[in-house]
């Protein structure tokens, strides 16, 4: 029941895969670029709160977004900028949400990574770690009750989130119902400052799969090729009706927990270990090696990403923020209930 695709065959690369890989690589670049921009905006005092980036985790994340199809469901975690873009979230959503724009999907009400477009299948996380697992499971249950086949839901989280009761209850529920849920745990060695050794005691988090009765995989989160293959495989198994799939990706968080965090607690040896490889460098090298692009083309791709990001950032900064006076201060869909509760002004 425990699959490991640690050593996929690297010989034959079908053209479709090449296309997929290059697409993925470009989303990764775009994700990295927009997050660098957001960090800059934060340093310039233009972003309230924190900026949380997925540096070093773009390969895992993008693989999720690309393995899903339109109509599938995605519950992203903190570091899923790449996966969001690949699954179809407009680039502007990130910038608008970080800048608290009324035009963004959260309308200034929630910020940064707490965004989604529910009607397009991307869930908006609350902060409480682990709590999306059961939400995505329930959405899949609904799809089944409504007679929809051929749908997959993926949700992403960090090593730390696996310690929550919500993770446990959600995955167990999904297993009991044999739902087409793919849970991707990105073990980036730390939860904020807390190392794996203070978070769990098992050898590899994938050892949890068997205890839920779900299929488990571990993969090298720095290697885009492996990520694409493993996630594709797991999503396929879920779609075929094989029930929940649990993937554990290993890598290193290459930034602070958020921009305000210098991550000085990270064991420096990790940066020079295989875990510390930057997945974007790995992917770039692979693209060059395979002759799918030359250095100039890659540079072009980066420029392209930068241009997109700059355009969007400029546009959003010109947009006006929300005005409290015409804010609709009502927490109820049943509008008449609003009048019952005192709202001082």
């Amino acid at each position, binding site marked *: 029941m425990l699959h490991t695709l640690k050593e996929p065959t690297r010989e034959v690369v079908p053209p479709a895969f090449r296309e997929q890989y290059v697409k993925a690589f470009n989303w990764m670049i775009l994700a990295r670029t927009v997050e660098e921009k957001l960090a800059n905006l934060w340093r310039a005092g233009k972003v309230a709160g924190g900026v949380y980036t997925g540096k070093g985790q773009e390969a895992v994340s993008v693989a999720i977004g690309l393995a899903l199809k339109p109509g599938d469901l995605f519950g992203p975690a903190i570091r899923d900028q790449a996966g969001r873009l690949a699954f179809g979230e407009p680039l502007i959503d990130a910038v608008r949400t970080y800048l608290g724009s009324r035009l963004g*999907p959260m309308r200034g009400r929630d910020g940064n990574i707490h965004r989604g477009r529910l009607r397009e299948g991307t869930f908006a996380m609350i902060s*409480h770690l682990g709590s999306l697992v059961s*939400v995505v499971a329930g959405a899949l249950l609904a799809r089944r009750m*409504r007679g929809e086949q051929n749908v997959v839901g993926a949700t992403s989280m960090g090593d730390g989130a696996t310690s929550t009761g919500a993770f446990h209850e959600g995955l*167990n529920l999904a297993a009991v119902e044999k739902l087409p849920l793919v849970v991707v745990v990105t073990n980036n060695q730390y939860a904020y400052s807390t190392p794996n050794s203070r978070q769990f005691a098992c050898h590899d988090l994938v050892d949890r799969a068997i205890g839920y009765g779900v299929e488990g995989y571990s993969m090298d989160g720095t290697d885009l090729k492996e990520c694409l293959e493993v996630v594709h495989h797991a999503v396929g198994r879920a779609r075929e009706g094989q029930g929940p799939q649990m993937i554990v990706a290993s890598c290193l968080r290459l930034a602070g927990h958020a921009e305000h965090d210098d991550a000085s607690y990270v064991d420096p040896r990790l940066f020079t270990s295989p875990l510390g490889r930057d997945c974007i460098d790995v992917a770039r090298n692979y693209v060059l090696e395979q002759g799918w692009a030359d250095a100039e083309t890659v540079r072009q791709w980066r420029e392209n990403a930068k241009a997109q990001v700059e355009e969007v950032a400029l546009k959003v900064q010109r947009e006006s923020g929300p005005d409290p006076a015409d804010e609709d201060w009502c927490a109820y869909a*049943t509008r008449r209930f609003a009048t019952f509760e005192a709202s001082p002004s």
Partner: protein
Amino acid sequence: MSVTYLEAIREAQAVALRSDPRVYIYGQDIARHGGAFKATRDLARLFPGRVLDSPISEDAMVGSAVGAEIEGMRPIVEMQFADFSSVGFNQIVNQAATLYWRTGVPCPITIRLPSGGNPGSGPFHSQNLEAIYSHFPGLVVMTPATVEDAYSMLLEAVRLDDPVIYCEHKFLYNRLKADSLPENNLPTGQARVARSGRDVTVVAYSAMVHEALAAANKLAQEGLEVEVIDLRSVKPLDLDTVLASVARTGRLLCVAEAWPWGGVNAEVVARVAAEGFEFLDAPPLRINSIDTPAPYNPKLWAAHKPSSELIVRKLRELIVW
């Protein structure tokens, strides 16, 4: 035909399942077994695949209901006891309650909380948590006191586009009977004058409405006319009906089975004091349970919660103030 409060709850769920294919029920032991209190008796058989046993996972029960409603369903979640909703608390107050406000996508889920005390239930099978859930923006909190309301409000809960905490009182399950179920009823957010009277207003909800009515009957024999208002829902809370009554009587006593600090009684008194200050001829008073967990021993339990005798005593004080 006669129907109990519990049967009304079952019947409302049967009607909801029958009339709306988006409705399903999720909870522990509710399918084949029909639930710890039999509120879903036979429903799994009548509606195959729509009444599902859950694992003992209150957090995931609520989380999955939110996911399902996002995808167009209208789930009813049965907590085995209100007290166990503490484990699903985070998903209720942070996931469900905020969803509409954050995303613009409504959150039509109903969470049934078998609430309140019974002899021998003890600290963890007796709780009244309406004050806890009412504090959070986005939640609707219903507290039906009658068979008719148990039925019609549960149907309305399922129809509403907001998450509803439906507090059903276990003490009333089999003790309360009605001749038939109503076709229509007051909408949520509207209180009901359960008994008219000109001398003093008692505001109550859920099981305490009946203690208040018993007290009113008792005092009626002495010529005292007590008006009893049944709040029906505590969020939203219908202040207008309460104010209109206090304007006539000039005196207010609030009765709730919940603990004394904060809660419905405090909210009602605070609003009346603010908006009906000039109506009050005497201090607005409150009766709650004692500020300890509910005791297991039936004698202790009876002394822990408000009773009609206590209400009578307080009303006598209030009337001569």
